[in-house]
């Protein structure tokens, strides 16, 4: 084999490895944010010019046109509180108190970040449509089938899914210490 053959092979290989590495490095989604709180992760760097090129590319792939943290905090959950990946065949309890934000919602997406069709034609719950109990708590069941009682959010269809919690105009305390703020609990109840 001639020398230039070897250089051609490694040039083509290097290009392929480089493109593959870029795609793999930027595919983590918003879930690879720096701040962790229970099942949720976020970063305060989204949508700002200070964001480094890698974070910017990750956000472009998983949350293009995302707002900065002062306007909206985007929390992502790909696992339950115990760290097990969210499974569309399982039943989860999502519960919490009223969140410190002007408005909030939790939306179910597939692994790529897209809405998936379901019989109820419902993909989210929000602060305006959850009912608070006597203790000021709300609770929603995320499951493939409608539960006998209580609020229901259809989960992913027989595959992995993700949740995005949006907090519009989060309170100052929340922005100052997001890792310690009280977020909804996400617990697997069964499969």
């Amino acid at each position: 084999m001639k020398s230039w053959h070897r250089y051609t092979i490694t040039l083509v290989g290097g290009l392929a490895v480089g493109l593959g590495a870029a795609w793999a490095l930027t595919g983590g989604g918003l879930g690879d944010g720096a701040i962790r709180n229970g099942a949720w992760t976020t970063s305060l760097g989204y949508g700002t010019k200070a964001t480094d090129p890698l974070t910017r590319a990750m956000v472009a792939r998983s949350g293009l046109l995302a707002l900065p943290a002062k306007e909206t905090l985007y929390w992502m959950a790909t696992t339950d509180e115990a760290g097990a990946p969210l499974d569309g065949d399982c039943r989860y309890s999502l519960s919490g108190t009223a969140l410190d934000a002007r408005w909030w919602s939790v939306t179910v997406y597939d692994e790529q970040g897209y809405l998936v069709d379901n019989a109820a034609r419902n993909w989210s719950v929000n602060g305006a449509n959850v009912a608070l109990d006597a203790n000021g708590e709300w609770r929603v069941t995320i499951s493939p089938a409608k539960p006998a009682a209580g609020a229901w959010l259809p989960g992913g269809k027989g595959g992995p899914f993700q949740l995005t919690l949006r907090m519009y105009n989060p309170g100052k305390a929340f922005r100052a210490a997001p890792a310690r703020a009280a977020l909804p609990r996400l617990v697997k109840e069964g499969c």
Partner: protein
Amino acid sequence: MRAWLGPLAFGLIVAAATAGAAILAIPYGLMNVAMERLGQGGINHMSHGNLATPERQPVVRPSPDLAYSTCPYDLSKGPIAIDMTPVPGRYSSLSIFDAATDVIFVRNDVEAGGKPFRIIVARAGQEVPKGAEVVRTQHDRGIALVRLLLKDPSEIGALTAIRGQSSCRTVTKLK
């Protein structure tokens, strides 16, 4: 085997350079795709979309609770004027993203005092109307996005008229 040392080192350098360049290029590429998908109503024109559903998701991770209006813009022929009319009593915001996906402007209804406002988006050096509020950008292209929170999806029909008051157009008069 020694004959491969040089080519392998070269391949590693190529891989690192390619990865770096691709990471820098990804935001621009995806922004172009988004402008293409959102630009069906035309460039420098505000389109008022229906709510996101599994059948209609022009951009990744859409919120099914928000009505989005979008204006993909191009400043190569001059600045644009964006008019935004908040809807009383609910969250709405105007945000502007440049070709690199960076946010260059955000204002919500509370910050606007619930009142309509106009923003001029212009490149450095472009002439703008006197007294106007101007956002300068380093890129010709980008997307202006209006988010409007719905209490219930069925509300969207009743909000058509007020959504239509938010608009986007090329600036033709400087006075």
